[in-house]
């Protein structure tokens, strides 16, 4: 592809993905409230627009016009910087996820992925491991004991579960022989990896929920113990940025689960992008379902579970998979 066309296509892809991501983040809040209210046999947001469909827009406007409070004793530089540090990794991690097959458009063949790098999966883990900075720094800079404890809990939790998460995908890597997400999807043309790696998928899913700080692993923001956790002092758009980061992370891990274990964009009859989105939203629905169903873990249970159950299980999964790959 010639230089200028390459840049135009690249910018277009980034714009579309970024726009869709923002829109999804806004409407995930609506979806979550609606689904949870269904579980709890109530209506949820109904007033703004039909079935509350304009609620996210109203919320966005409201958050923008709220007073932006910075506590007097806060470390101003880091306090302002921290929400951005949470938001950026959440958005840039989507760059390596393939959301469709190669298409031909205006005589050019275009890959349905922003960038197919040969270390795609490692890039994702690298970026994901940076998300913890926004949370831990925000908690510290607020100069508030609840916020600090929330931030530290989150740091401990994310580091512990990142390890098992990384190990849970090693089986997938061994089967696909590549770190490129495009090739991993390609390797699932015969069978989805969820069939070959059921334990890996389970571990990955549990760790993904813990990584995104969602129920039943939402200890960093346990209201009964820590008020609101690391973002207790944040208001207005800074609070909204933390919120957006959480939902964007949710989309990214769901997309990663889809790509690694559910065959990515592969599927019969319907166009690949539709399949990708359908699987993505199925995983997200599962996340919301779990939040509506399960009570929160206690902190020591969380750590015990991560280190004494998930980690050994992930290692055993690697050993068994390695044996199969070697004997094949």
């Amino acid at each position, binding site marked *: 592809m010639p230089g200028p066309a390459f840049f135009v296509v690249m910018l277009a892809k980034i714009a579309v993905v970024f726009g869709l991501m923002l829109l999804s983040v806004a409407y995930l809040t609506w979806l979550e409230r609606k689904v949870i209210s269904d579980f709890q046999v109530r209506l949820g947001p109904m007033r703004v627009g039909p079935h509350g469909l304009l609620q996210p827009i109203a919320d966005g406007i409201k958050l923008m016009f709220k007073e932006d409070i910075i506590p007097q004793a806060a470390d101003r530089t880091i306090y302002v910087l921290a929400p951005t540090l949470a938001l950026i990794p959440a958005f840039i991690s989507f760059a390596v996820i393939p959301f469709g097959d190669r298409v031909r458009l205006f005589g050019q063949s275009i890959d349905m992925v922003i960038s197919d790098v040969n270390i795609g999966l490692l890039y994702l883990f690298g970026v994901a491991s940076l998300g913890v900075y926004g949370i*831990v720094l925000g908690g510290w800079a607020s100069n508030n004991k609840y916020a600090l404890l929330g931030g530290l809990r989150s740091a401990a939790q994310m580091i512990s579960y990142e390890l098992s998460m990384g190990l849970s995908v090693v089986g997938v890597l061994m089967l696909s022989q590549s770190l490129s997400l495009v090739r991993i999807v390609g390797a699932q043309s015969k069978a989805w990896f969820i069939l070959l790696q059921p334990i890996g998928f389970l571990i990955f899913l549990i760790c993904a929920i813990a990584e995104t700080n969602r129920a039943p692993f939402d200890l960093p923001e346990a209201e009964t113990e820590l008020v609101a956790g690391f973002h207790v002092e944040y208001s207005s758009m800074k609070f909204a940025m933390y919120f957006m980061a959480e939902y964007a992370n949710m989309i990214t891990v769901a997309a990663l689960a889809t790509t690694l274990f559910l065959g990515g964009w592969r599927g019969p009859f319907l166009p690949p992008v539709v399949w990708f989105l359908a699987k993505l939203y199925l995983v997200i629905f599962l996340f919301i379902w779990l939040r509506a169903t399960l009570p929160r873990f206690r902190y020591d249970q969380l750590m015990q579970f991560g280190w004494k159950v998930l980690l050994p299980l992930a290692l055993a999964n690697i050993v068994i998979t390695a044996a199969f790959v070697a004997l094949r």
Partner: protein
Amino acid sequence: MEWLFFIPLAVLALATAVLVILLRNPIYCALALVGTFFALSGLYLLLQAEFVAVVQVIIYAGAIMVLFLFVIMLLDVGHEPPPWLRQDRPKLVLGLGLVALLVLELAVAIGSWIAPGIRGPYTSDYINAVGNTQLIGRLLFTEFLIPFEITSIILLIAIVGAMVLARR
């Protein structure tokens, strides 16, 4: 083209490294060090060592520095003046001596046969053909198997040692 990326990254690496020593707040120092790791990671990318670049971010920026921050926050390390501002004559002399030694070593290394001219058996074309993750994996489990295993045993000893000390 390469200079376009190399010079900003090199400047960033040096500037953040200097900030690590100059800043007074230990949290800012730690963050400056994260900046250094990023700049180094960028330099590895320029050398087409994608695996090393990303592992640098995952391990140093994503795990080790987070634990540093953790400890600094939990211990609530105060805003002490940095060591170079304290009037501590013997340490200052020792420090300057070590700096002089390092500069000397660098001068010898850069000026002599160590840095320029010598090329290893792995050209960048070969690495790109095999894939650098695959190549590192293969070398770790063949040529460098024993050093690799020794390293992991050392790490294991450190973990067991930490557990023993913590239980006391």
